[in-house]
């Protein structure tokens, strides 16, 4: 029988621990498929975050380092600077990248660190039980915004990708999703481009994935997809935010 679909070598056979319907496992798989297809497993080093994907290194069969909360891009900088011919990526959630790690995020991109930053935005702190994130939507009910996110108290959701495009170090900034097969294909393209740009030494590639958190959102997986389409995407429109200028 012909094998048409299987686990790439770049994923271990450890079963994902993610909740049913969560986008993390899809993003992991797509990222690792690209690493395998490009044949760069032996040259790729990842940085795992704090949050639900803290164990990304259990699944991704590449050399990896676990970073402190918010510091993944600084850790990735340290790796890339001493191993400039390797492919380096960081993988962070919204609390990690857009709250506690904002300084590291902005300065890593501002230096144009030649890395791929993967940013999972699900508008909530999933791991710790569904608290308000910097990207939580106005009015969003979470365990720490039980009456809905109040703009007077905590301001607006931060659109970090929209901020980063203004930095010359940002070479490619895109916002993608994994809620349907078409979105997954687009995300895969974004990762492929990012590794190609990294190979060419172009600067920072920033791939945001607007994803779901059925558990944190207190929804079924199906409801969470509907919420993504109806509520999250209007606030975080999908598509490229910054693409290389055509020569």
């Amino acid at each position, binding site marked *: 029988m012909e094998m048409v679909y299987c686990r790439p070598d770049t994923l*271990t056979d450890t079963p994902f621990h993610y909740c049913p319907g969560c986008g993390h496992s899809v993003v992991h798989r797509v990222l690792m498929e690209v690493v395998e297809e490009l044949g760069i*497993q*032996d*040259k*790729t*080093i990842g*940085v*795992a975050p704090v949050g639900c994907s*803290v*164990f990304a*290194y259990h699944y*991704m*069969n*590449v*050399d*990896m*380092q*676990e*970073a*402190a909360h918010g*510091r993944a891009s*600084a*850790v*990735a*900088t*340290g*790796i890339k*600077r*001493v*191993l400039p011919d*390797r492919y380096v990526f960081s993988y962070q959630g919204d609390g990690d990248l857009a709250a506690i790690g904002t*300084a*590291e995020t902005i*300065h890593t991109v501002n230096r144009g660190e030649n890395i791929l930053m993967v940013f999972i935005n699900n508008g909530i702190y999933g791991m710790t039980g569904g608290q308000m994130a910097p990207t939580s939507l106005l009015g969003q009910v979470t365990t720490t915004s039980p009456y809905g996110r109040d703009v007077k108290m905590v301001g607006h959701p931060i659109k970090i990708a929209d901020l980063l495009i203004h930095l010359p170090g940002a070479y490619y900034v895109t916002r993608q999703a994994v809620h349907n097969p078409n979105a997954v294909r687009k995300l895969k393209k974004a990762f492929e481009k990012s590794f190609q740009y990294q190979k060419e030494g172009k600067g920072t590639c920033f791939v945001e994935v607007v994803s779901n958190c059925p558990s944190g959102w207190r929804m079924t997986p199906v409801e969470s997809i509907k919420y993504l389409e109806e509520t999250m995407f209007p606030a975080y429109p999908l598509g490229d935010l910054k693409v290389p200028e055509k020569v």
Partner: protein
Amino acid sequence: MEEKKNKNGEAKLMKGNEALAEAAIRAKIDAYFGYPITPQSEVLEYLEREIPKRSGLVLQAESEIASINMIYGAAGAGARVMTSSSGPGISLMQEGLSYIASAQLPCLVVNVVRGGPGLGTIQPSQGDYFQAVKGGGHGDYHLIVLAPASVQEMADFVFEGFRLAEKYRNPAMILTDGALGQMMEKVIQPEEGSLPKIKTPWATTGKTKDRDHNIITSLFIKPEEMESVNHQLQEKYRKIERDEVRFEEIKTNDAEIILVAFGLSSRICQKTVDLGREKGIKIGLLRPITLYPYPYKRLNELADQVDFMMSVEMNAGQMVEDVKLAVEGKVPVYFTGRMGGMIPSPDDVLHEIESIIEKQNVLQD
């Protein structure tokens, strides 16, 4: 301190911070990540000027938090890396140091201490002793801590720090102060490239077919596993405590009073020893060179021969706790010192000793 002469070259007049930075280049560091703060900015300045002409990489980060995490990443990738800062910046690095110690990565961190707490003052202090030797960050871990007392040692201990850090896969710290950082003395630099690079099969350099993927982490979520990592660390610390204690003794043979002091205050106490002996008071000095591991055993032995000991520090009395632990109540242990960037003089220390002797005589009469 005795002037050193060897085959490596002529003695050169250098600032402590610059001697340390030059030694880092000679130790062939792969990278230095740092952030400016007085009184150690010359380290970063010197490296920014010299490294592009020679070898290695230097990067000014956006904060000490970023610096220490760049250190973590680069050390995890197998590089020889270093950072430096002063009190407030070192406080910001505590999170990273705990992670580095837990992940068992070698690196060298320099603290050119200024007066605190808070923003404090830029004048020299030894107020970060507790932070350096008792942890600083969260969890059960130790840094290997070296305390130079001269510009020569500012250079030498860069090599020694890396040697120990790499031997034990543990972060090492040079705990010095603003005066040693700023003062100029003759120094003979270690020979460039004379520190061999260690093998780092555990480093994240890219997973090849012949091995499993390497993971650098400090996360061990199962308590059984976390405890076993802690056992590993503690075993390592016991070995360090057994094999790596370093100290210097001055005129302790016939001493009836022992001063205990490290770094700059040991320089002051050396003078006190001479002044006291001119007056017929038999003072000796024990200078811990490693603050972790600490020379508990030797101090305990010396306690058998002396009337009392006195810890002399530029803080409110921190190391004195370790001196007391060492002597186990055999003899009284006193403390004298200045705080907030003030430096005690040799006479100040001698006066303290004389007043203690006087009190003891009164009691005996």
